[in-house]
């Protein structure tokens, strides 16, 4: 692999990201701009930005790696990532936009008017963001290490440095443009190599699937997961997406409820198109880089395939494209997370001033960087799956019941949040401490969503019913604001 070309690709993506961010600064004038892009963002832009933000290292590198390692079971991840947005559309998109909450803690305050619950939600948001950034940085370290031979920690530092700069420079407005740009970059960076490799194999008269042989020997490389594992994973991904803080921030930039729905539907289109390509590359990986399945480096599949199949200058060029896309993935997801993390920290610690936002940005980048440098790499898709399980057990019940059930009380919400956070946290901790044990018992702790999510819901509902006399007095006014369509019917049929 040609390291110079790879370095040029990384440098190019970094420079373009910074340039767009700095140009966004000139457009960004008021605080409204700074935080929410003044809601001037159109659905297509906004949807591209959401896609750009959402498609992280786990999607870009992790899914192909997962398909190489666990075969057909790997296909559940992209389904879950996409269908999670369907759930978000069904239950959260329009009401959340109408609530006029900018962040999850804002929502907690609007719905319940409780400072304590707001603080608990902020704390959970901060934990979730940090947990989510760390795998991105591991991905950056892996990519830089494999493609250029530089020490991996430089990748993590580079990503966090650029994110810190872009967020400080432009806030949300420029982030929207950066994210939208990065979605299309990521799509192209997987689509071009995937199509090229398929055409190349076709011209050489080779079969992309080795004549279907790679599906015969599933038992050879596949560590087949049970039914419980798949269903639990699906629960985590379906219900975890709606709790992702960096995704929810985006809904504030829609002008009204219907446009929030429209944006989400466009996101679903974009994701459906995108996920075809990691799947294709994963199948190619099973055929042409099968040894990665057992090497523990399966996440590198996408990076190594072009060199393996084509080689030479063309292979180098394709690899450089993929590396550029990978860095776009790390940059966009991390900057989205840093924006919402800094938003949460600055609103609660610095009264939401722009200066406070900037201080919070620095805090938001330094802590996960230290965490990433102090821990070792996991499988990317698995690490992200754990974060989804955590958000599904905490934020998801709060949002769903808060939006749709008038009987939810502050005590019930707090009890449910704590139950979900503690049970899911302990399960994930146990599975990290005892890593290699296989079997149904281990699945229960390594993929806990199937029992922690219902548990959190039950506790939240049960405690709320027990404290039914303490339903917030203005609940009807709040629910009306969440669900009643906007005054001016601007979307005429």
């Amino acid at each position: 692999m040609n390291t110079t070309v790879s370095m040029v690709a990384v440098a190019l993506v970094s420079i373009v990201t910074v340039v767009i961010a700095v140009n966004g600064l000139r457009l960004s004038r008021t605080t409204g701009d700074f935080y929410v892009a003044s809601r001037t963002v159109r659905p297509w832009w906004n949807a591209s930005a959401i896609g750009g933000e959402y498609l992280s290292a786990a999607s870009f590198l992790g899914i192909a790696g997962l398909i190489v390692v666990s075969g057909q079971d790997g296909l559940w991840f992209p389904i879950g990532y996409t269908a999670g947005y369907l759930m978000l559309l069904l239950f959260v998109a329009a009401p959340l936009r109408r609530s006029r909450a900018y962040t999850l803690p804002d929502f907690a305050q609007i719905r319940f008017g409780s400072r304590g619950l707001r603080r608990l939600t902020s704390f959970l948001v901060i934990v979730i963001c940090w947990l989510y950034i760390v795998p991105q940085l591991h991905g950056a370290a892996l990519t830089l290490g494999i493609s250029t031979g530089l020490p991996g920690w430089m990748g993590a530092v580079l990503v966090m440095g650029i994110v810190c700069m872009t967020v400080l420079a432009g806030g949300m407005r420029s982030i929207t443009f950066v994210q939208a740009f990065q979605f299309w970059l990521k799509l192209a960076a997987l689509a071009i190599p995937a199509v090229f490799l398929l055409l190349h194999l076709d011209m050489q008269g080779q079969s992309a699937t080795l004549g279907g042989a790679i599906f015969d020997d599933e038992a050879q490389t596949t560590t087949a997961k049970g039914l419980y594992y798949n269903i639990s994973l699906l629960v985590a991904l379906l219900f975890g997406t709606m709790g992702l803080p960096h995704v929810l921030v985006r809904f504030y930039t829609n002008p009204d409820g219907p446009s929030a729905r429209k944006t989400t539907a466009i996101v679903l289109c974009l994701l459906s198109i995108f996920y075809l390509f990691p799947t294709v590359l994963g199948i190619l990986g099973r055929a042409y880089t099968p040894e990665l399945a057992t090497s523990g480096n399966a996440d590198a599949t996408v990076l190594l395939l072009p060199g393996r199949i084509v080689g030479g200058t063309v292979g180098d060029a394709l690899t450089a494209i993929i590396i550029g896309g990978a860095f776009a993935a790390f940059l966009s997801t991390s900057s989205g997370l840093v924006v919402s993390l800094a938003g949460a920290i600055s609103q609660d610690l610095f009264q939401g001033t722009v200066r406070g936002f900037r201080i919070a940005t620095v805090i938001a980048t330094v802590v996960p960087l230290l965490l990433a440098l102090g821990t070792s790499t996991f499988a990317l898709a698995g690490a992200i799956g754990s974060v989804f399980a955590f958000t599904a057990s905490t934020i998801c019940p709060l949002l769903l019941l808060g939006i749709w059930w008038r009987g939810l009380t502050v005590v019930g919400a707090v009890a449910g949040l704590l139950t979900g956070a503690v049970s899911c946290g302990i399960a994930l901790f146990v599975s990290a401490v005892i890593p290699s044990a296989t079997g149904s018992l281990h699945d229960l702790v390594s993929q806990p969503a199937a029992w922690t999510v219902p548990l959190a819901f039950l506790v939240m509902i049960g405690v709320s019913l027990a404290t039914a006399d303490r339903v917030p007095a203005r609940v009807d006014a709040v629910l009306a604001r969440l669900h009643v369509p906007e005054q001016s019917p601007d979307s005429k049929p």
Partner: protein
Amino acid sequence: MSGAAADPPEPAGPPSIPASLDAGDAALPPPAAHRVRVSAPAGSMLNIPRRLEPDAADAFYVRSLIRSQLRLSMSVALGFLLLLVGLAVIGSTWPQIHEIRLATIPLPWWLLGVAVYPMILLSAFLFNRAAARNEAKYRSIVE
């Protein structure tokens, strides 16, 4: 706005300007003439203005809107979830399905890797239309 207070000798001129401004831009916040300390859009917007007299009929319509929207969301979600669980169960209880191949790729791969996505998009499309229809119905009743 400061002109009215600063120039008392000329009572005729200055007051007319703010008056016309107020009339024209009644809906807009007053223009800021000096540096303003900007802060997050949280603050005042988080406080919901109290309704003066909660109208019983209005509250009823809002509740039935919420109920119909929830019923819609739940049925789309349940339908889609049943589909996914069905796929998972078929895959694990009927291993022979892997022998059915299209272009050397087993049928479950096609179903999970490709066919699921159009179904997600169809669900989203139908939901958006039905949700907008519910809201239009509510608006036609209330307005």
